[in-house]
């Protein structure tokens, strides 16, 4: 039976020569689909990053002619801020962390030759690409792109006479809806593959943490997005068909939208967090040559966080006019949810403790993730307490908090994963020196942008303000100085991304050839060729142990691949 299957795989390896278009654009191979998602996501990160450059220039130097954009009008500003947020979450973090890494890693790490539904996999990317196109269309329709914040609250979102972007609002909503469909399809693929297509011998606790995390994230997404899909349809009808689901003058309720949105919106942040935490786990074990301190604890806290994430959502609505008794309940649940995540961080620190640490570029990113996410998590506690939130809501304190969580997740987590798996994905090694330069420039730059913003927030800077000169009490030299410092740090940090792009491209084209297992890691993907062929292995592997058997006493090597017989 095994021999029959082995030959079976080999047959597929020998496909007739296909055109470039069929190979790369219409492929059903999970690795190609990963690259499609990854490069699309990275391209959109450039777009959203450019938007942040434009609006931060306006904030620091109001009224200036921003190079590459021109004068920033209030409408421009709102559109830039809205789309920066929406793009970063829906079209950068999710495609790169879940769709790209999930697609690449799940089959390879569980010893399968592809996803269980390769054609649905391809379809999911095609729908995702369509959502990108629709999003771009929204920028060019009459009235311009939607500008009512990524949270899309009614009545601003529902009524064209308020938003002034009647068409853009609906087109934006359509883009988001398509993106949801793409990820529902993809998620089902990931979960079913991980549940059913594991290599012989791979029991539940032999699955690498990153695979668990991506699967749990996919389940969280599937379980939470439903009400928002319903809400999006209701919002579209309010916009286009004259219904009044969210209009209190005609029998609706705007708070209903908020609940529908945040019931998804909060689990969503854990949807993107878990893959980044998973990537970190893989890297810290390899680069400290140490077993993960408590595998089952990490797993259980991830599941616990997932479940709890459904009980905290209204902390985004503390000052929206919700029942204060509900605010009490949500404060308690929000503070509780910090515990499992903190536990995970402790486990990671315990994993590092006493390890034989190598500070290669991927490890720097993983450590950088832990350091910055800790700050993000701790500052969330202030916001989770409804009393403190009354003051801090809608200030830059909130903004700094969620950038101290999202940036580690979406940017640091991505760089960690890319620098770590680059050799496997592309068969070449990245330049480690350039990698370190890029890391420090990004890491220091990031902190210099957002630490000042905690302070401007506490001092009273509201969010989503186009020009602070309208607020004399916020136009003090200190506040203006802090805002300018943050903006200049952003320019420096953006500049350092050129180092990464240069490193990526030159390594891809001319980098030294990568061996099979340059990091001497245990997990199954490192036993496939660099890069793996179609079908991944000629003979699919069998698993004999867990993924974190590093520095096992009495063994010659300090690592012990999962598929090695003994």
């Amino acid at each position, binding site marked *: 039976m095994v021999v029959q299957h082995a030959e079976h795989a080999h047959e597929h390896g020998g496909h007739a020569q296909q055109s470039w278009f069929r190979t790369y654009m219409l492929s059903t191979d999970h690795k190609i689909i990963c690259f499609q998602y990854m490069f699309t996501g990275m391209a959109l990160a450039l777009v959203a990053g450019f938007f942040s450059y434009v609006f931060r220039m306006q904030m620091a130097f109001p009224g200036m002619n921003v190079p590459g954009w021109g004068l920033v009008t209030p409408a421009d500003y709102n559109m830039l801020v809205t789309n920066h947020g929406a793009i970063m979450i829906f079209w950068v973090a999710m495609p790169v962390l879940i769709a790209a890494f999930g697609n690449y890693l799940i089959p390879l790490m569980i010893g399968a030759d592809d996803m269980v539904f390769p054609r649905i996999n391809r379809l999911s990317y095609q729908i995702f690409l369509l959502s990108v196109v629709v999003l771009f269309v929204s920028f060019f329709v009459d009235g311009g792109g939607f500008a009512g914040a990524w949270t899309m609250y009614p009545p601003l979102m529902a009524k064209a006479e308020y938003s002034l972007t009647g068409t853009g609002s609906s087109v934006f909503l359509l883009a988001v809806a398509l993106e949801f469909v793409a990820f529902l399809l993809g998620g089902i693929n990931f979960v079913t593959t991980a549940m059913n297509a594991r290599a012989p011998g791979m029991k539940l606790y032999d699955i690498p943490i990153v695979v668990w995390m991506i699967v749990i994230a996919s389940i969280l997404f599937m*379980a*939470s997005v439903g*009400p928002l899909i319903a809400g999006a349809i209701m919002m579209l009808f309010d916009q286009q068909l*004259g219904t009044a689901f969210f209009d*209190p*003058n*005609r*029998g609706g*309720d705007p*708070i*209903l939208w908020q*609940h*529908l949105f945040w*019931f998804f919106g909060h689990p969503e942040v854990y949807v993107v967090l878990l893959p980044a935490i998973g990537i970190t786990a893989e890297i810290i074990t390899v680069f400290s040559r140490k077993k993960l301190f408590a595998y089952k604890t990490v797993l259980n806290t991830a599941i616990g966080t997932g479940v709890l994430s*459904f*009980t905290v*959502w*209204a902390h985004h609505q503390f000052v929206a*006019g*919700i*029942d204060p*008794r*509900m605010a009490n309940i*949500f404060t308690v649940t929000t503070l509780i949810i910090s515990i499992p995540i903190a536990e995970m961080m402790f486990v990671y620190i315990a994993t590092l403790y006493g390890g034989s640490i190598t500070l290669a570029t991927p490890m720097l990113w993983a450590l950088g993730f832990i350091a910055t996410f800790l700050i993000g998590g701790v500052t969330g506690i202030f916001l989770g307490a409804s009393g403190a939130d009354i003051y801090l809501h809608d200030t830059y304190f909130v903004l700094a908090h969620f950038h101290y969580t999202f940036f580690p997740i979406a940017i640091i987590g991505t760089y960690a994963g890319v620098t770590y798996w680059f050799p496997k994905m592309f068969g070449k090694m990245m330049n480690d020196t350039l990698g370190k330069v890029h890391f420090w420039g990004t890491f220091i730059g990031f902190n210099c942008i957002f630490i000042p913003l905690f302070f401007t927030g506490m001092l009273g800077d509201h969010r989503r303000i186009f020009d602070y000169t309208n607020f004399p009490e916020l136009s003090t030299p200190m506040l203006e100085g802090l805002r300018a410092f943050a903006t200049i740090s952003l320019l420096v940090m953006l500049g350092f991304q050129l180092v990464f792009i240069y490193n990526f491209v030159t390594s891809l084209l001319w980098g030294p050839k990568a061996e099979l297992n340059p990091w001497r890691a245990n997990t199954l993907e490192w036993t496939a060729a660099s890069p793996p062929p179609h079908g991944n292995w000629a003979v699919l592997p069998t698993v004999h142990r867990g993924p974190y058997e590093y520095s096992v006493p009495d063994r010659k090597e300090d690592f012990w691949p999962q598929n090695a017989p003994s």
Partner: protein
Amino acid sequence: MADHASHDHDHGAGDAHAEHTHHPNYVRIWAVLLVLLVVSVLGPMVGIKAVTLITAFGIAIVKAYLVAKNFMHLDLAPKLVAYIVVTMVVFMVLFFAGAAPDVMESHGSNWEKPSWVAGTVHAPEPGGAHEEHH
């Protein structure tokens, strides 16, 4: 090609044969469902609210259970599947519990929903061309 089809077939049907050695009488289940439907339609005619609620929603739950157990074979699937379904329903109850206190309230200390308070949500008069927007 044919080999593959029967190969996959065996995978699916092989498991299936082990599971479905005895099919319930599907037609009888269907007949029970129809009887329940009739009861649920007649229930409101009694005029007692409690009876209406029980026949309408109680029967809906029973019908759903019958379809899930006998047509979808939920009892034969691994228990995990039932847990997944129940968990989703629990999440929906959670959503309702979190949102209802706000959505079902017609006014707060600093706000009100005009149409809810005034009770102006009403059905249009039948027969006339109704104005779509305010």
